[in-house]
């Protein structure tokens, strides 16, 4: 119904397995091995990192530019600015006025969009391959050439406020998640919503956006991913001629440093009440290492743990709370490994009518305790590894998915080798490592538990009128 999202909310599952790789020896069950050439990578003299992923099935190419800036890089008080700027990047340059870029993409049958997360902001176009040169020219031009006027900035701010209303204000579960994240992060800006707080979004200005743009948008703060029916040697001159001409910004620091979390010491709970809640939900978020911050082997173990707990009908939570005991309607578990700083491992349960939060929480905690005490059976471990590794093969079917995996991983500071070795590292995860991951990281003091409940109190609005 809608165009593709302009926003990748951190809690979305879209990049759940973002570390998963390109090509790899297939799973044991697949009994098949495939190999692929390594994507071509190089860095231009102005600092732009380039990744080229071949896919010759269809004469189509995907261009994605990833900036190493997201909501966690915003100045306090200006929440939502990274995402607001993402919207404004469609407002044209001196060379190409508003609409020209988009119209060019459309005229050739292409599509385009953009997305923002806590760690990155990205823009992409999918076009017939003979259009790639023009796409490079447009995208390189708007890296530093954006022109903003109040007459298009202010209506766009209203658009973002409507996006907030659609995604958050109208959605009680999203409002709960916002509260959980704010409670989980005591000091790190991951606690701020990617879309921003409403009272701060409504005050963002053209000047704020331009200052942020000049501070963060430069070739030495970006990764260009090109996936599709191209040859790296053939397109490199065009990359040099377009992106290569954009001057580097010497003021951008080589490393991204954000305020870090103190050791978590207290379990927290939040309760969000809304009169529209017809299905209560319990969510538990733990602060855990990301692929970037984890010790060797730890992040793949968390991937396996999430799959064991939440992947499909035989996942431990689903079996314990839905199938074996009729306590819940549905369950889920996920681990967001692709992040610059310590990230979240999240669980969710929708209790059945008449079942208390206490009952489902006890059952959930029993599953976790069991995982923390006993090594998982070999056959379960094998099953979830097969699923995780197979996902990487399924992903090869889509050049856009591949471009997204590489772009996200490289933008948070991982390497091509990290991505390509992911299946091997999944395969190497032992039952003891999974037990240790559960024992070390799924502890209550590291967590926030959120409860979504129906608000039955009379509304304050009625009193006012």
């Amino acid at each position, binding site marked *: 119904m*809608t165009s593709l999202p302009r926003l990748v909310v951190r809690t979305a599952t879209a990049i759940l397995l973002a570390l998963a790789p390109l090509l790899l020896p297939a799973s044991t069950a697949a009994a098949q091995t495939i190999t692929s050439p390594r994507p071509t990578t190089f860095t231009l003299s102005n600092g732009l990192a380039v990744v080229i992923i071949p896919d010759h099935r269809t004469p189509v190419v995907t261009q994605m530019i990833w900036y190493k800036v997201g909501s966690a890089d915003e100045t306090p008080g200006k929440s939502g600015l990274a995402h607001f700027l993402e919207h404004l990047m469609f407002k044209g340059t001196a060379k190409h006025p508003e609409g020209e870029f988009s119209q060019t993409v*459309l005229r050739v049958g292409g599509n385009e969009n953009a997305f923002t997360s806590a760690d990155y902001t990205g823009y992409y176009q999918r076009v017939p391959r003979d259009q790639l040169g023009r796409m490079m020219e447009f995208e390189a031009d708007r890296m530093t050439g954006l022109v903003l006027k109040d007459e298009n900035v202010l209506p766009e701010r209203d658009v973002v406020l*409507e996006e907030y209303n659609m995604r958050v*204000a109208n959605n009680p579960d999203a409002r709960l998640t916002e509260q959980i994240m704010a409670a989980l992060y005591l000091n790190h800006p991951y606690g701020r919503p990617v879309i921003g707080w409403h009272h701060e979004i409504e005050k963002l200005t053209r000047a704020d956006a331009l200052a942020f743009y000049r501070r963060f948008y430069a070739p030495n703060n970006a990764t260009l991913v090109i996936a599709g029916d191209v040859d790296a040697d053939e397109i490199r001159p065009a990359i040099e001629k377009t992106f290569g001409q954009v001057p580097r910004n010497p003021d951008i620091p080589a490393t991204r440093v954000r305020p870090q979390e103190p050791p978590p010491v207290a379990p927290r709970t939040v309760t969000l009440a809304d009169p529209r809640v*017809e299905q209560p939900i319990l969510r538990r978020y733990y602060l855990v290492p990301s692929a970037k911050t984890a010790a060797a082997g730890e992040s793949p173990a968390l991937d396996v743990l999430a799959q064991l707990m939440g*992947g499909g009908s035989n996942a431990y939570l689903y079996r314990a709370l839905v199938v074996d005991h009729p306590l819940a309607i549905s369950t889920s578990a996920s681990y967001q490994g692709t992040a610059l700083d310590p990230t979240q491992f999240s669980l969710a349960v929708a209790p059945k009518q008449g079942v208390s939060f206490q009952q489902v929480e006890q059952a959930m905690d029993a599953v976790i305790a069991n995982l923390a005490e006993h090594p998982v059976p070999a056959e379960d471990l094998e099953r979830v590894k097969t699923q995780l590794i197979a996902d990487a093969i399924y992903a090869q*079917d*889509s050049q856009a998915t591949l471009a997204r995996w590489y772009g996200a991983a490289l933008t948070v500071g991982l390497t091509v080798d990290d991505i390509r070795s992911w299946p091997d590292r999944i395969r190497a995860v032992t039952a003891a490592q999974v037990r240790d991951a559960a024992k070390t990281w799924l502890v209550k003091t590291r967590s926030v538990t959120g409860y979504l409940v129906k608000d039955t109190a009379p509304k304050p609005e009625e009193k006012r009128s």
Partner: protein
Amino acid sequence: MSFTWSGVTRSVFAAACFALISLAPVPSHAAAKIQHLVSPGGIEAWFVQDATVPLVAMEYAFKGGASQDPADKAGVGNMVASLLDEGAADLDSRTFHERLDRRAIQLSFEITRDTLRGSLRMLKANSDEAFGLLHLSLTAPRFDTGDVERIRSQIVAGLRRDTTSPNALASRKFLQMAFGDHPYGRTNSGTLDSVPKIEVGDLRDYVRRVIARDHLKIAVVGDIDPAKLGKLLDQTFGALPAKGDLTPIPDIVAAKPPQRAFIPLDVPQTVVTFGGPGIARHDPNFMAAYIDNHILGGGSLSSRLYKNVREKRGLAYSISESLLWMDHSALFVGMTGTRADRAGETVDAINAEVRRMAEDGPTQKELDEAKSYLKGSQMLALDTSSKLATGLLQYQMDGLGIDYIEKRNAIVDAVTLDQARQVAKQLWGQGLLTVVVGRAPQAAAQPAAARPPAH
């Protein structure tokens, strides 16, 4: 969103660019290579063999979707679709899922208005197991009590949530307004009254009536040879009954616009659904209408509605309109979400754009650009095995020829400005069926954004 009609977004395809493909160094997904495969047992499929990635994707559909639900038991088809992967023959739900998971086989079912659809994806090496499990699920579903009740409680929970979801409320009301008591006026998932009444006998009866060979369409793309595929198709579908037993569904024209409904709900963002009678897929003017709709509200970031409601006025984040076609009717439907205190302004802006399209039609420039888009976008719609299989299935459901992809550009080119104007008048000239869900205009004068209920 809540509309799950078939054919909403699958219509943009056509011939891949042969010149470029011939230069490609490895086998391509070229639509030119679609085979009409007939298995030894007579099962037909559209098939593209492609070994680039070691996987196989199959999409298939049985005619007779949610519209085959008994009048007092809306939601039967949806419940069947939700239960077909919950155990079959001597494999209970747990064992069945274990077999799927162990080989990472992706097997799922979905109900649409006119079809029960299935999707099967597997790594190449697992094709025997994947097709074998599908065969069991189609021919010997268990419908064990525990599983039925578990799935029922999930569906009921979703229906309860829908009672306070502005999007769901708007969609439901729109269908009722458009189709009244006709089966298309019901929602696919049923109601809080109907779903609790559904019995295992209803599920079995639905399977008997719908899962048959006579209206089965299949599309397969991937790394498998035709002889092997033919054998697997026979093993999977060959034992199904030759004929189903479908209840005839009358054709219906959607209610005549303009009509309006308002549903009060205390939410910060007001949801607006709008639409009217559409155009049949086989109508000679279909492509002209498709182009007009693309210009007015198609999914791009450049449609008239996008420009005038979102970009210029900042009234909405998301606004778009689609043509929907079904076996027995057709609609155009749009949806947007807008600030509560400006909902009136948004509805006025939408009406103004619809009126302008009806009165003047597109400009020559808009028509040319839309044609250029539709012709170019074909390749992008074909770039994954799953997308290609989905598209090939849709063409079959729409009754198009296997050479449609090659013919499509010429069909697009043949649309004239006069024809586009004439169709625009026919489609949008009556005004709109409109459903608004949100705060009453007076209450909406309160601050638009969500405020915490108490400070």
